[in-house]
């Protein structure tokens, strides 16, 4: 290595390291704050906690985080499942059809991506409400599913355009109907698209706040973000418990991401095509 390229390499490492540090610090603050007392948090912001107390985690847990966790898991799993199924089916038809009208159908679905949630929140609420679906996990899972479909359809669409059609043709010759071709051949081979679709939508649905706040008013069905937000009272806020709750809510997603990230990067490459 020449001295010059060594300097360059050190410089590049420095840039990436700096950003990595910048990314890590807030996460660090979140975790550390969760171990402090409120007074300690506000009087000694830069120091490590005097003693690592799990009291804040207990308080956060005490507001029923375990229940919120279960609700979030259920809602996220159900909505992601619906999203993956509905999007992949639709994207498959769209990617394989030559009819000009399908282009418009594609545009109509993808247009949903551009509709901001807060601009349709009230009609949406009234719809769910008049369907008697308030305070049910399904109520939240269906709109979540709907809002996840446009992006995931795009994702699957680009993936299916690249999918080797001979495999489908072989399966049709082997006696599969179109739906069987899809479920027995195409879907089992869509791992990367499924993985990244699942990650994106899990992240979104796991973290969604406003709709959950409006539609899940009973404490037993509330999801994590709303439940944790409950730690900020009318006139007070338990910051350490808040941070503890946020930390608890964040960990599962980071784990999922770590597990699936290889697939994820691969399918992102497909997105750009």
């Amino acid at each position, binding site marked *: 290595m020449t001295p010059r390229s060594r300097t360059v390499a050190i410089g590049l490492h420095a840039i990436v390291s700096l950003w990595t540090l910048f990314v890590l610090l807030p996460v660090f603050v979140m975790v550390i704050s969760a171990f402090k007392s409120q007074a300690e948090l506000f009087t000694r912001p830069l120091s490590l906690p005097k003693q690592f107390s799990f009291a804040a985690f207990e308080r956060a847990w005490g507001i029923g985080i375990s229940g919120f966790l279960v609700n979030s898991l259920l809602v996220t799993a159900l909505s992601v499942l619906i999203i993956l199924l509905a999007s992949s089916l639709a994207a498959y038809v769209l990617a394989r059809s030559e009819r000009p009208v399908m282009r418009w159908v594609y545009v109509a679905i993808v247009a949903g991506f551009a509709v901001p949630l807060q601009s349709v929140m009230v009609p949406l609420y009234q719809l769910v409400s008049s369907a008697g679906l308030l305070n049910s996990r399904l109520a939240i899972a269906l709109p979540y599913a709907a809002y996840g479909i446009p992006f995931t359809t795009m994702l699957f669409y680009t993936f299916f355009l690249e999918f*080797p059609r*001979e*495999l489908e*043709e*072989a*399966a*049709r*010759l*082997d*006696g*599969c*109907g179109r739906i*069987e071709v899809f479920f*027995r*051949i195409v879907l*089992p*081979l869509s791992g990367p698209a499924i993985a990244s679709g699942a990650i994106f939508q899990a992240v979104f649905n796991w973290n969604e706040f406003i709709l959950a706040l409006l539609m899940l008013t009973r404490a037993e069905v509330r999801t994590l973000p709303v439940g944790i937000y409950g730690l900020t009272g009318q006139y007070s806020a338990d910051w350490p418990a808040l941070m503890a709750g946020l930390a608890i809510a964040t960990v599962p997603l980071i784990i999922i991401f770590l597990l699936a990230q290889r697939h994820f990067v691969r399918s992102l490459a497909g997105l750009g095509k």
Partner: protein
Amino acid sequence: MFHLEVRDVVKRYARFTALSGVSFAAERGEFVVMVGPSGCGKSTLLRSIAGLEQISSGSVSIAGHDITAAEPSDRGVAMVFQNYALYPHMTVAQNMGFALKVARRPKSEINAAVMRAAEILRITDHLAKYPKALSGGQKQRVAIGRAITRAPEVFLFDEPLSNLDAALRSQMRIELSRLHRQLGATMLYVTHDQTEAMTMADRIIVMNGGTIEQIGSPLDLYNKPATRFVAGFIGSPRMNFVAAHVLRLAGRSVGFSLGAGLAPLDLEFAPGETLPFLGDAVVLGIRPEALGDSGEIHLADADVAVVEALGRETLVYSDAHALRTTDSESLDGYFAQLVPSQSDKRPGQRVSLRADRSAFVVFAADGATLHDASPALAHHK
């Protein structure tokens, strides 16, 4: 009754017509190869027979049943794809047994069928492997095995050997021929490689621009091409073409002018052959092996440009200057000679291009063959 019968098949897309009225029939057990340049419609025809394309009009029947509107799986066909199309998420055995599994056949029957096919193709050792663990040739066998398991009426092959290297390709050619004899099945085989067509086919269908140019046995096509296209397509290296026009007509004797400064060429047309008119532009064809140092006719002097010594034979390409080849496809207007021995020709050397009168084929301007080379050509040389 023919085993496979294709009648007036037309396939139109929004912007072009891929097949414009194609008809042919194959006997049970026949090995039919469809050749033609890419885009000629041969793959479309194969896929139409498989049911992967819906034809615009016409009909297809197999073993007496009209299957024009049938689902692909109900047609009694199996297909081997160019890139194998093995299901990556299934083992070799699962790949081969998939069709039977879809048909909800008992496990024992599936296993037996898979075993039988695997034995025929000598891939019993690989049954538990996934496709990605196989070599190209092994994948090809599995793809064929998958077709065999289904015990179809008709096997369809879509350029199955084009992804293999040369040595493997010639080996697989032989195996396919053996397999054909062993199974006694009707096979329809698409390729753009005329060597495969010549070596394996009972009959060859030459396609061009969505229509059939000629159907016949390999040697028929070689010796009596119906059109200039067939003549050019069958045979390697390809036939040399010379632009000419009709100089004189005397009974069945026709004199052709080959160009300024070159001796005219007189050919005798057999009874039944169509005579051209005086002044017609025609094309003369002559196979590379018929072009040599000796022969009745001196065509032209030429300068050797490239020599390809292949050991047992030698290919000599030379520039005849005054003599015009007709199409840009031929190598820079070079004339190809196939010398059936090792040769001492060197580039830059001047040679004389000679041939026997009986070696010439005459094509009309529209490509139709007017005059055949002598069938005895093979013995003559």
